[in-house]
């Protein structure tokens, strides 16, 4: 069952579209449910589809097409590091290596305590601040150094 909080947010998104186009809100509905539950299970996706009155497979298509949806648990804090060209030119590999060492995990792995998951991202459209990372799809951290990464991790642990 979708929570009343999620439903309230989805209803707000629905005000942006014509009444007969409920499917249009699926992108945000999936995002809202993912934010609340941490990741999107098959069940969550089907609940969203039912709420919007769209075929489950269509919601599944969206959830699998866009790479910020997580179809498996990602721990409490998902850290996505961009390694695309502009970040690569400014040594994003140093940041990646540092994160891997600090967290003791590779890409797409979750730390044993369930606190962190490390992901490799494609261009986030903030290349002026390279190298950069993203926490839980919402917080952007730019102009990274290994010291800054340590501070970010410390703050997240609290």
């Amino acid at each position, binding site marked *: 069952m979708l929570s009343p909080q999620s439903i*309230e*947010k989805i209803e*707000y998104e629905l005000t*942006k579209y*014509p009444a007969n*186009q409920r*499917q*249009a*809100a*699926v*992108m*945000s509905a*999936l*995002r809202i449910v993912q934010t609340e539950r941490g990741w999107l299970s098959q069940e969550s996706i089907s609940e969203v589809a039912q709420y*919007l009155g*769209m075929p489950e497979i*269509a919601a599944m*298509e*969206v959830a*699998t*097409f*866009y*790479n*910020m*949806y997580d179809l498996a648990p990602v721990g409490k804090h998902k850290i996505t590091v961009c*390694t*695309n*060209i*502009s970040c*690569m*030119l*400014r*040594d994003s*590999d140093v940041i990646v290596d540092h994160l891997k060492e600090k967290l003791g995990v590779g*890409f797409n792995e979750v730390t044993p305590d369930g606190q962190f998951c490390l992901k*490799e*991202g*494609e*261009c*986030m*459209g*903030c*290349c*002026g*601040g*390279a190298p950069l990372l*993203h926490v839980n*799809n*919402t*917080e*952007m951290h*730019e*102009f990274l150094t290994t010291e800054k990464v340590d501070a970010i991790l410390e703050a997240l642990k609290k």
Partner: protein
Amino acid sequence: MTTKKAKSSTKAPVMTDLKGQTLVCLRTLTEKNPAALETYVKLGGYATFKRLVTDKVKATDIITEIKKSGLRGRGGAGFPTGLKWSFMPRYFDGVKYLVCNTDEGEPGTFKDRDIIRYNPHQLIEGMAIAAYTLGARVGYNYIHGEIWQDYEAFEAALHEAKAAGYLGEHLFGTHFSFDLYAVHGYGAYICGEETALIESIEGKKGQPRFKPPFPASYGVFGKPTNVNNTESYASIPWIMQHSGQAFADLGVANSGGTKLFSVSGHVEKPGNYEVKMGTPFTELLELAGGVWKGRKLKAVIPGGPSTAVLPASVIEAATMDYDSLSKARSSLGAGSMIVMDETTCMVKALHRLSYFFYEESCGQCTPCREGTGWVYRIIDRIVKGQGKMEDLDLLTDVSKNISGRTICALGEAAATPVLSFIKHFRLEFEYYIEHGKSMVDSKAEPSNVKH
């Protein structure tokens, strides 16, 4: 609900060094709170929109002015904006839509983000003027999913504009109504393609539509839709305030106005620089602090990876406008200038780019879906020291067979870096294949990209 006070979205400092820039789209940057509604109104914001609506200025007159300005689509294609507007059906029984493409995902492109976080109201006014001109009742600004904080800040700016009477019903007591909403992507480069973006607004996976029909006749929810880039819309209020000619005069022939250049990579001061079209490359590089660490320039991708890479000697002779870069056999693209210094390994740079296009191909057209993977695997084996000399011709052949054989331009975008990197830096590729390692031997080179 979810109405928040507008605030600057991230901790990144507002660029204070505006020397050498000509501010049109980012004109509020001279002020203390650039994103605030009061700031924009103080600089004359929304007055042009109000005048056009209350004076009932004819749509054809506005379109004529936009045509005179020489404004060309800032998302990369460079299609004349005024001409695009004239394609929208004048009379249509039903809702027409307006869409803004703020889905920046092409590596090196980050200009629209600064418009929505530092001058959101100019974009809103530009879209409102477009809506009035084209008779659009509803608009959507589709924002790249990763810049979540900026999306939220833009939503807040929309609520502010609505509360102040610039959006909504019966604006300024006239019959004109316009509702504008922010919607977001969630990680798909392909949604920067306008019909994929439309599919995404409709709540579908972002696979481009076959054209024709074009969005002007069959767009959002099957209705006539005008899609422009953020920077294009943000240029409109200035043009309508100062005249099309004044905007054209800022630039050079065939390239009117100013352009935001996103400068990234090996420069001292990466960031956005808004300069007059036709500004010499060397001047722009200087604004960005020059090549970092006192190193020499090796190559520049002038408009994002879908535009051809140029060696230093060629780009140094160019000016930043459509004609000059096209003469240099590249393109202005979205103005996403990626600077590479002498320590850059071109093989590894292409390796990363080819992975990007492989990862982001939507999978709809076989030549792109299969071809981008094939290209990546070939470059990957070269990087791993297992390349063969004939791989270079194979890469060229595969790329040429993607180009022009797909529904959208991603196929061509994927082929361009391969063809241009090999064309200009063939020796480096040959060396890598022969020796199993990079010709560029430096600690500062990007050491690895693992997938």
